[in-house]
């Protein structure tokens, strides 16, 4: 038997603490979603649940960020997000234009107010 020490140990951790606990939800989704049809009510509901979770993720990343983004004031983060969304709407729903505007606003605001 190979002992799980030394160089193999981090890879064992990756499988047990990273890969398996993450992939299990993909596997369950595959098993549950395999027999459903595109227009079915359950698929609509699943899409709504997933979309609401993404909404939650977005809001949390803006309001309670970690790392370097936390050093940029909340007002700057919110103003940049607003700039991004306005640019997105003005540019006929271009995600690229929105992301660019948001990043520029964050950079400018961070430069002016982060000290």
């Amino acid at each position, binding site marked *: 038997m190979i002992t799980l020490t030394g160089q193999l140990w*981090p*890879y064992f*951790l*990756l499988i047990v*603490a*990273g*890969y*398996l*606990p*993450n*992939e*299990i*939800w*993909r596997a*369950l*989704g*595959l098993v549950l*979603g*395999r027999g*459903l*049809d*595109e227009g*079915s009510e359950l*698929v*609509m*509901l*699943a*899409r*709504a*649940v*997933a*979309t*609401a*979770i*993404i*909404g*939650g*993720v*977005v*809001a*949390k*990343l*803006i309001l309670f960020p*970690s*790392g*370097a983004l936390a*050093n*940029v004031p909340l007002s700057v983060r919110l103003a*940049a997000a607003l700039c*991004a*969304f306005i640019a*997105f709407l003005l540019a006929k*729903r271009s*995600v690229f234009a*929105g*992301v660019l505007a*948001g*990043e520029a606003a*964050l*950079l400018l605001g961070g430069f002016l107010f982060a000290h």
Partner: protein
Amino acid sequence: MSDLTVYASPRAAFGNGVRSALLSVFLIVLAGTYLGLGALAHDFGFTEWWFALSTALVWAAPAQVILLSSLGTGATVVQAAVAVTLSAIRLLPMLVALLPLLRRKGTRFRDLLLPTHFTAISVWVESLRLLPGIAPEFRIPFCNGLGAGYMGTALVFGFIGYFLAAGLPPLFAATLLFLTPMSFLMSTARNARMMIDRAAFGLGLVIGPLLAWYRVELDLMWTGVIGGLLAYAFHRLRGALA
């Protein structure tokens, strides 16, 4: 008969999926995100190959951040595994919503395994947007191309970030971290054409931070359940009244 895109071969569909990935805004987002993650992996003392393997196997940025920071700060295997699995619950409803677009009569189970593994927010959002316009028999190779294009980008920029690690100025690091919420915000808003999706997204934006603020456990799972069910109820009610 219909105006669905047809490709010369599954291989051509795969190539077009890769092309779509390389031309999409998510390319910049993934590049930026994995630049930051690579630097994080370096700072916590993981090897570059360990980090690359984690990108290929886990393929979910939030789970990778949790894995790096929990193992890096000395959490136990069980603590890290629980934190990772809680962050990954969203993958289940995402797959349930995506599979009907990929599957058709006679699709083999094993052909769904690769698209299943590639499913992450970026691939999911772009698949939901692009797959309905593609002939069903070419959707699986197209989706695989999309996933391969994104994952390749993430791997390359993960390495770059790993070796740049110490050189990232703080404000630049902040703008990299801002790429993810910005791109998810607008790509999801762009995809939300039906009222039920718009309602779900709006509810998630409000409920998510409220639950996080009050430190409700499993906040994102409850955001999905509450926001998704309310949006669905609203959708049924409108249907019943119409």
